[in-house]
């Protein structure tokens, strides 16, 4: 089970790029006890009907390439460091709440303010105070790696053709609403079998666009005089800061929803981001069996 999908453990001469014909190689057998020992109880109903045997087999689908997995996991600490260092910078702005008039980092309109991010307990609890220079240094150091990782990911996605699974289609918004209703228990209609559902297409493409937005707004803040055209197009320096900050808040919202969905989907789904493969849902295996007679 390497990246070329060509390993068979039973030493049979079946073509490596094709699935085994049902009945010849016991394709849907696997060791249920061993799998459940890895904490897959919550996902057991999604996997094949398992039975122990000498040649226990399990059907797997290739989900994430090695490159995607590496870039995904590299991005995780980089995004964390960018947000962390951003908060170190932001603390300095919070020093003069009255002076800065809550114009950027708040929820409100005009002179009316509902609340401002963040409270002092937040800075005190996480030791985020008096580190402006350090925050700037971290931000301007790790921005290179964050940007490079993002650019390489976008290039890879397009060159590999993976974008076809990720870019929303004209049906995606209707499909995404069905996904949301399904997960809220308001729709019993099953979700279509596809690599990424419509809500994921929108979310994963959206977060890449957000990354681009962060780079652009970050540049507009970093060199507002030199690239004033970009800063001006964003609505000026203050608006560029506003966009930059709110994009970060949306990252956090994305992260929370993403993690919640990963927990809900279970170990089988999470493991695919580690090993690349996901044990096929039982519905898929049964459908395959029927279609193959």
């Amino acid at each position: 089970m390497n990246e070329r999908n060509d390993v068979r453990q039973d030493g049979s001469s079946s073509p490596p790029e094709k699935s085994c014909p049902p009945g010849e190689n016991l394709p849907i057998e696997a060791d249920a006890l061993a799998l459940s020992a890895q904490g897959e109880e919550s996902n057991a109903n999604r996997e094949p009907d398992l039975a122990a045997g000498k040649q226990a087999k399990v059907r797997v689908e290739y989900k994430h390439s090695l490159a995607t997995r590496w870039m995904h996991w590299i991005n995780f600490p980089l995004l964390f460091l960018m947000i962390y260092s951003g908060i170190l910078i932001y603390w300095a702005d919070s020093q003069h709440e009255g002076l800065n008039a809550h114009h950027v980092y708040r929820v409100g309109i005009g002179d009316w303010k509902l609340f401002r991010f963040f409270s002092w307990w937040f800075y005190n609890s996480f030791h985020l105070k008096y580190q402006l220079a350090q925050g700037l240094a971290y931000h301007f150091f790790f921005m290179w790696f964050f940007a490079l990782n993002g650019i390489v990911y976008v290039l890879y996605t397009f060159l590999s053709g993976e974008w076809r699974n990720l870019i929303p289609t004209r049906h995606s918004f209707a499909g995404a609403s069905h996904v949301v209703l399904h997960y809220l228990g308001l729709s019993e209609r099953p979700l279509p079998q596809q690599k990424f559902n419509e809500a994921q297409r929108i979310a994963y493409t959206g977060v890449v666009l957000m990354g681009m937005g962060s780079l652009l707004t970050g540049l507009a803040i970093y060199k507002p005089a030199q690239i004033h055209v970009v800063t001006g197009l964003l609505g000026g320096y203050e608006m560029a800061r506003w966009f930059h900050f709110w994009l970060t808040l949306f990252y956090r919202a994305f992260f929370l929803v993403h993690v919640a969905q990963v927990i809900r989907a279970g170990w089988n789904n999470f493991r695919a981001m580690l090993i690349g493969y996901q044990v096929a849902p039982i519905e898929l295996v049964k459908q395959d069996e029927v279609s193959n007679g």
Partner: protein
Amino acid sequence: MDKMPLDIESGEIHRRTRRSVLITGAAAAIGGGLWRWLNSWSRIDGLNAPFRGVLDFNAAIARGLFREEARAPEYARSKAVRSFGRNGDIKYAELL
């Protein structure tokens, strides 16, 4: 990219999982080590050398991309804000 499903021995899944978890753990340890290493350098003007070096690198890029004699855009007085944001005055008292 979208390869056909394939049938493998269940033990292979476990072996791959163990290997990936070990690699992930090793990568996390290397990342943590890099973080400590970056912050262990001697300080130049208050910043650890690698971070100071990258700030200098960024400045060199900016000098290469933008002409220093180019004028910043000018705006009408009416566009001036009443109160401008500033990043605090901590340490200023010591400098002045």
